Each structure stands twice: as C-alpha cells, then as structure tokens.
C-alpha cells in the first residue's frame, strides 16, 4: 500500500494562456493515493484545461508535474496513458467508426506476433463491460448504442488505462441514477486499490457522495482546497462563485395560466412514444419527468417535428397546424433547445455570434440578412443575460468551455422569442450559479407569458419552476402533478408507481 500522505500526483504552477484569455494561472493540484478528488468551478473556470495540461493534450505554458515523486512531462495523451493516467475528456467520446471492443482497446490491443487478436479482445471487452452492468455485443459498432452506453464504455476505457490516476471530466452528465451508481462503485474499487481519481462535475450532491477532497478553481486560479468532510455544500458554492448564492425558496405560483396555446391530441410514434395528449397554456411551465429513456426527449422532439409522428393532431390557439419538420415548428414560433449540444447544436467553427443568431436568421430567411448592428446587439444582450464567459464574440464556439457552449445554445433559441419554448435538459453541464440563473430565467419567461415545456432529470429543478409536471414511464405518460402536489418525493413516487421506492431525490 502506498504511503497515503505522499502525493501520487502533484502539479504546481500550471499556467496556460490562450489568445485573449488566461485559462490557468499558477494552478496547484495535489492528488493523494486512494482519494477521490473533486475539481470544481464555474463554467469556464479552467477545469477541463487543467486536466488537458496534465495529460499532455495541451502544452502547458508553465509549471511542473510529478507523478510518484518523479517529474513527468507528457507531450501527448499517448504518453500520459502509458504513464498510467486514464482520462475521460468532457467533449470527446469515442470513435464512431469503430466497434465497442475496438474503442475499448485502441492503443493497447491484445496482439500475438504483432497481429491483433480480435476474438480475445471481444471476449475481454464483454467481461469488462459486464462489470458495468452492460450486457452488450462489443463486436457491434459503437454507434449502435445509446449515448449513455457510449459514455459508460468511455469510462470503462479510461479505467482500464489508469494504472495510477483516473480523470473523469463530467462523466455523469448523460447518465441516469443507476448508471451513476455503477460508475461510483467502480470508482470506489479503484480508490481502495490506491488510485487517485479526479472527478469533475456540476452535481454537488455527487461530489459530496463520492469525493474526499476538492480543489476549487475560479477564473483560472485555485481559490481553495478543502477536505469535504469538513465543509458544507454551501461553503463550496460560495468558494466557487466568490459570493453567496441567494437562497431561492420555491414558492407556488399563484398566477393563473393564460389561454390555451397548444393542444396535442394522441400524438405518437410507434416504437418511440405512445400517443399522448397534452395541453400547454401561455404563462405555464410544463415539466417532463421520468427516467432516462422514459420518453422525455422523444416527447420534445415529436412536438418540434424533429421526429415525425405517425399519428395525432396538433392545434395552436384552436387552429389546426401541421408540424412535420423543425422548420414548420419554427414558423409556428416553437423553439427546441436540444439535449446533446455536440451533435445537434453548436456549429463548432462558427463564431459565438453567428451561433447565437443562427435560428433567428433561419426564421427570417437567408435572403434577408439581419443588419450587423442588430446582430451584435442581440448577441451581446444574451451573452450578458446568460453570463456567457468568452474572450470575444468572434471566437469559434468550440473554444468556449462546455457549459458556456450550452448557454450559447440556449441563447440561440431565446433570440427567436418563441411562443413555445421546449428545453431538453437545460442545465446539463451548467454550473451552480448559472443553474440558479437559468431557473430564474425560466420563471421570468413564464411571467412574460411564454409557454415552456421542460424535460429534466433534475427533480429539484423541475419542482422549482414547473407549474405542472407530466410524469413519463416506459415511453408513456403515467401521471400528472399540479400545484402543491409537485414535490420531489411525489414525482419519484409517480415514476416508480408500481414499486414505491423511498424518495431519493
């Protein structure tokens, strides 16, 4: 057993400059063997940049790294992997053109005489994945599995790679509760084996559940290192934001919803979601609750025309409308902010400004370009309103931090001033401060008379802003909660109606 007080990995004075931004300024990070170390901070604080400097994905501009007492200087991820540092990066998943097994073993394939042993790898992959509760065929292409499964595969790959240190950058964002628990049980096993695990997330409850210590970053600087058994979540939040987060007590909205905006009648698609009815009023936030794969995203997509239903009718203000593709929905002044910003949202090489303006311009038609001044005004307005951290509006959006990309995407749809705004997981990957702001924003939009449909796996969050919660299970609507009924425990009870569980939320 290694000495538990001698750092396994020690990084000091790490600096990284980007054109127009100091991403890291003399950052220090100490990882002890057998600990789970949370790396915390707001969107754009520099968390992802720090780990990329540690693994050699970025060349750092200053600082030293020691691993096991010896100085290391990885210039490529290849090298850091060989040193026993396994990493799940925030934005990277795996290679879509390879099979699950090939992804799992890329770079450390089982060979004999220089030739790959495919069968052996498929067998080994199956065994590895069984430990994560995945009983899948590793010889299948990666893309034949869901995002959540892919994420678990990515984690499994990093774990297999990590002889000493495992780094996980927001690994749980697309996982549901059970999958998170599986990942946690693996992390605990590694901790017992004396590995150091770095865990980055915006879910504070997960931080406190699994982590021993935490390093908090703000604007590229370390603002504190804390033993998590000594502090409260509130202390951590204050440290992250540099200010107290105002307590937002959820009060039941008294104001009556306005007139009916959208009526859905028996809309459905075979194999995806069973036909459902839904009425959304102006000035109302309808929450969609349910487990991963319960049909939340499907409901949102169907309504927006991103997926075409095979039956059902739609009325807006009493008039029959037809939505067969997103463009129809946009003309009806619907907007959908999707869940998976990487594949469905951002256009990486376009500037932040163009990304924000995209949907509005699309509705206007490309032949009538918005005047430059107006574009700037709109973009600046939303950058301020959502507190998007950037060096300039001209930078390509892919250079923003993960959470800030998410906010820019939200800005894109807000800019169209929709009548019905559909949000799918609006706070995924967004830090606590911005989280509270987005909730406040939803409330404000509602008060202004917008109708919102919000799908989320965060029950507390749903409770905070919903005026009505529709509960889904197994691709079916199974219940509806209104008014005082809306509490986390009631939602959990509705989700799990058949076998009532204790409220865990």
């Amino acid at each position, binding site marked *: 057993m290694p000495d538990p007080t001698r750092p396994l990995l020690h990084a000091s004075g790490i600096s990284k400059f980007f054109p127009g931004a100091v991403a890291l300024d003399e950052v220090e990070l100490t990882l002890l063997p057998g600990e789970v170390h949370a790396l915390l901070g707001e969107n754009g604080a520099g968390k992802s940049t720090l780990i990329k400097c540690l693994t050699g994905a970025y060349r750092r501009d200053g600082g030293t790294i020691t691993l096991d007492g010896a100085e290391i200087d990885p210039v490529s*991820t290849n090298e850091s992997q060989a040193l026993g540092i396994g990493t799940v990066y925030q934005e990277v998943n795996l*290679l879509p*053109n*390879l099979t699950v097994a*090939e992804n799992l073993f890329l770079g450390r394939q089982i060979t004999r005489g220089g*030739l*790959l042993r495919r069968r052996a790898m498929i067998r080994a992959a199956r065994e590895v994945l069984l430990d994560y509760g995945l009983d899948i065929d590793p010889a299948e292409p990666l893309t034949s599995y869901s995002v959540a499964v892919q994420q678990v595969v990515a984690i499994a790959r990093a774990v297999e790679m990590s002889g000493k240190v495992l780094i996980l950058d927001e690994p749980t964002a697309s996982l549901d509760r059970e999958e998170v628990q599986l990942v946690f049980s693996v992390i605990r096993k590694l901790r017992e084996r004396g590995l150091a695990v770095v865990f980055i997330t915006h879910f504070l409850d997960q931080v406190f559940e699994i982590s021993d210590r935490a390093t908090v970053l703000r604007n590229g600087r370390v603002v504190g290192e804390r033993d998590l058994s000594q502090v409260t979540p509130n202390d951590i939040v204050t440290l992250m934001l540099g200010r107290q987060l105002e307590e937002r007590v959820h009060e039941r909205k008294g104001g009556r919803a306005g007139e009916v905006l959208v009526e859905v009648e028996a809309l459905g698609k075979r*194999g995806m979601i069973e036909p459902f009815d839904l009425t959304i009023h102006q000035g109302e936030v309808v929450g969609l609750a349910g487990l991963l794969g319960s049909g939340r*995203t499907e409901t949102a997509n169907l309504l927006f025309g991103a997926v075409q239903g095979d039956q059902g009718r739609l009325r807006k203000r009493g008039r029959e409308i037809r939505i067969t593709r997103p463009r129809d929905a946009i003309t009806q002044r619907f907007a959908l902010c999707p869940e998976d910003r990487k594949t*469905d949202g951002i256009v990486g090489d376009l500037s932040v400004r163009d990304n924000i303006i995209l949907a509005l311009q699309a509705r206007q038609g490309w032949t009538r370009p918005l005047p430059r001044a107006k574009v700037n005004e709109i973009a600046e307005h939303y950058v301020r309103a959502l507190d998007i951290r950037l060096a300039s509006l001209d930078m390509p959006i892919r250079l923003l931090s993960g959470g800030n990309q998410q906010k820019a995407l939200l800005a894109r749809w807000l800019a169209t001033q929709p009548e019905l705004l559909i949000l799918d997981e609006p706070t995924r990957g967004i830090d606590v401060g911005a989280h509270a702001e987005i909730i406040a924003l939803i409330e404000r939009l509602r008060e202004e008379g917008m109708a919102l449909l919000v799908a989320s796996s965060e029950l507390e969050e749903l409770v905070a802003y919903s005026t009505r919660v529709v509960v889904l299970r197994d691709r079916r609507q199974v219940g509806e909660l209104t008014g005082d009924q809306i509490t986390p425990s009631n939602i959990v009870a509705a989700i799990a109606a058949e076998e009532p569980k204790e409220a865990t939320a």
Partner: protein
Amino acid sequence: MIRSTHLPLLVTLLTFVLAYALCAAQYPAMLSTRVVANLLTDNAFLGIVAVGMTFVILSGGIDLSVGSVIAFTGVFLAVVLRDTSIHPLTAFVLVLALTTAFGAAMGAVIHYLEMPPFIVTLAGMFFARGAAYVLSTDSVPIEHEFYDFLQSLYYKAPGGGRFRLIGAVMLLAFVAGGLVLHRTRLGQNVYALGGGVATARLMGVPLARTTVSIYAISGGLAGLAGIVFSLYTSAGYSLATVGVELDAIAAVVIGGTLLSGGYGFVAGTFFGILIMGLIQTYIVFDGTLSSWWTKIVIGALLFAFILLQKGLTWATTSRKRVRTGSATPS
C-alpha cells in the same frame, strides 16, 4: 447479421459478380482463364497503388502524387539500368527507399505543418513528375536479362491463361495490405484517424507516426507499382500513368470505402479494381465501343457508389437519432 459497415463491400462484390455474369452470358469466352489472368496482369500496377490509396483514404486523406511517382520510378529504373551497371534488384531497393521516403516526407509535412493532404500531395505530384522529366523526357526502353527473366515467370493454367509474376505481386500487396490494415495496431490507428483526428488524438493515437506511415506506405506502394509497370511495359516514360491516381481513387470508392474516411476494406478495393478491369475487358471484347466508354461507365459507377454511401450514412445516422431520440434544430 450483416453490419451496415459491411454493406458497401457486399454491394461491390455483388456488382462484380453480376457484371461478370452478364459479360459471361454475352461472351462465354470471358470465363476463360486467359481473361482472368489478363485481368490480373493488366491491372497489377493499378491494384498495388490502390492498396496504398485505401490506407490514405481510410485515414481521411488523399494522395494525388502516386501517378507521378509511378512514372518517376519507371524512368529512374530505365535510366539507371541504361547508364550504370547496377543490378535491377539493387535498383528496386533503391527506388523503393526513395519513394517511401518521399511519401514519408509528404506525411510529415501534412502532419507537422498542418497542411491539407490535397495540397501537399498535389505539390508532390508536380515534384515527382518534374523529377521524371529531369531524368529523361523520352521513353527509355529497358533491356536487361534479369527483366527478361522476371517477365518469363508465369504459371500456365489449363485453358491457356498465363498468370504472371506481376499479378502475383499485386495479390500479395492486397493480402499484406489487408493484414496490416485489419490485423495490426497501425491499421487500427488508420481507422482511428479517419474516425476523427481530434478524438483520435485525445484517445492517445500517435498521430505523427501514423500519418507519416500512411503516406510512406502509399509512396512505397506507388514505387512498387512503378516497378511492376516497368516490368509490364519494359520501358520508363515520364509521360506515362498520368491520372492513375484518379483511377486508384475511383477503385477505392467503388470498392466501398467512404471518401471521407473511417469506413472501408482492402478487399473492397480489390473488387473495385476487378470491376474497372472488367469494364475494360468487355469493351475490348465488344470491339465496336470506343475505349472512352470505360471512363463513362466508371463515372456512372462512381456516382452510384457515392450516392449509395450517402444513403447509408443518412440511414445510419437517422436510425441513431431515433434510438437516442435527439433532435436537429435549424
């Protein structure tokens, strides 16, 4: 179960079988070993260079220099054998080293200077062609007893078909290429590059080494194709094999490899070559058709295959969307 990634390969195979059956129905003589042997011999150099092109395209790149490299190799060999007393085998080793290094250099430029392969290999194309001109502008015949010896090696099959050495070299190139691509780490890294450079980098794929290797392989195989071509024509000519790089690309695409990289098989390229050779043979058999019909048919085939790939990518992504239920705005 048929995986969607195998589908283009199957389509290629089917196209070949169907086309061959149709040809044979019209001209039963096309079933003879003679035709088969000629198919291999006549396309040997193209096949070899197409193996290299498969590597390059799978990795998401392109190599426009190979046609010129073949011509250069031919002229180099002819001039060396004419003006010096170097043994052809030594000359072969020399020219292979030269072309491999040339490919590696292009790979290094592509990787380290972050230049698009299209531009770098276009420059390489002019460079190699120019080097060939510098050596000689005329067609230089090759007369050497070792060449005669190599050309005299063949297996005579029942039915009169002569399976010559160069056909065997091509088959060997395909087998070796397939082995490297599908059964080694390097091969996996080639696919990884084609799947996404940024992702491959974060997953620890050695980009520099892989990129350099890929273009070195392509250059080396172009050199080998040049040797084979000089055996085939017994001459070296700086104006030879103009546009062969495009034929090679066509064979790779008809073989079911995605032009944007990441998906495909060496075996597909083999059948791509055979299909193109078959069209040529058919036109010879017909006798009335102009040889330009070859180009037209290949053009049509290419178009059809690109459409097929587009359709497949579309089908798989939309199926994935349905599964994960995500949306596409705007």
